[in-house]
């Protein structure tokens, strides 16, 4: 577990350094993810330890958003003046994004000369 965690941190650190030195708009961890992905392709897959550690970490990914989520209490007053347009906008936009993305993908996936597949 320690070696897997170290590997993840090393890639995060490398991503952070790249993001800062080239002033990239993408956060360091996302660049670290891309680099680890490339490394996995080159190496032909993760070792068992990295596999288990990442699985454990991702199983409870939602826990990791809780501290930031709780920060809502500090900024809630910003929302109070315009809460109705904000809420409606978020609802409509999130819904529309889900529908449009799924619909476009579904349409693009079906080849025009349909294979004999049954649904």
């Amino acid at each position, binding site marked *: 577990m320690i070696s897997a*965690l170290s590997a*993840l*941190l090393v890639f*995060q650190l490398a*991503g952070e350094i790249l993001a800062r030195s080239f002033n990239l708009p*993408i*956060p*360091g*961890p*996302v660049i*670290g*993810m*891309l680099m*680890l992905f490339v490394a996995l*392709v080159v190496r032909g897959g993760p070792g068992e330890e*990295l596999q288990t*550690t*990442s*699985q454990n*970490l*991702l*199983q*409870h*990914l*939602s*826990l*990791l*958003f*809780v*501290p*930031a*989520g*709780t*920060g*809502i*209490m*500090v*900024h809630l007053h*910003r929302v109070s003046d*315009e809460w*109705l*347009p*904000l809420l*409606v*906008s*978020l609802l409509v*936009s*999130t*819904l*529309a*994004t*889900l*529908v*449009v*993305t*799924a619909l*476009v*993908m579904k349409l*693009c*996936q079906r080849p025009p000369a349909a294979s004999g597949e049954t649904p």
Partner: protein
Amino acid sequence: MTQEISQIWVYLAASPLLGLTITLLAYQAAFALYRRSGNNPLANPVLIAVFILVLFLTLTATSYETYFAGAQFVHFLLGPATVALAIPLYTQFKRVRSMLLPVLAGLLAGSLTAIVSAVLVARLLGASASTQLSLAPKSVTTPIAMGIAERIGGIPSLTAVLVIVTGILGAVGARFVFDAMKVRDPAIRGFAIGIASHGIGTARAFQVNEQSGAFAALAMGMNGALTALLVPWIAAYLMNIG
């Protein structure tokens, strides 16, 4: 006696132990509820845990800064967890490669929809210009979204709230939307949820299905990059036609 209790409280409130402990406890309670509901998206664990914590902090008059001094240890793990998303992505790489066209088309369509619809609906309802600009990057992960908001003249702290709410809305609502649309492919379900509601949506996708999770992670990363490129242009255009 009461003095002793208040002394203990003074100690606890000043140490990071309390913030860390209540974060884990609140999450465990929320997660137990979520499991008991049969992973019902309405019982989203982030939503419930945040609700419990805000209630607790408000009732005990504890500041968010004090709380975060402890909770930051959990928060910190977001970085390595983001890096770890490379592993499911690698595992699902074959499927991703076979879906290159739907993935790229879905990314472009979804990213544009997320930005434009949020701004236009808010404008229609009379929101101020800075509020509209704060809404534009709401579908991408918090650090990217706040950076964009700052660059285009939005309010970064408002954007942070909008990002969290968007994440929760998508995580809660996606299943009902996809079921109504009869979209069953876990890859498409995951990708769409990752586009619409970034990490919180991705967390939900991982709880449902590994392939959904991998596609959500992919969508989240790609949409973060694309939105950072698109929003400054789109915002300038939308603000001019207003």
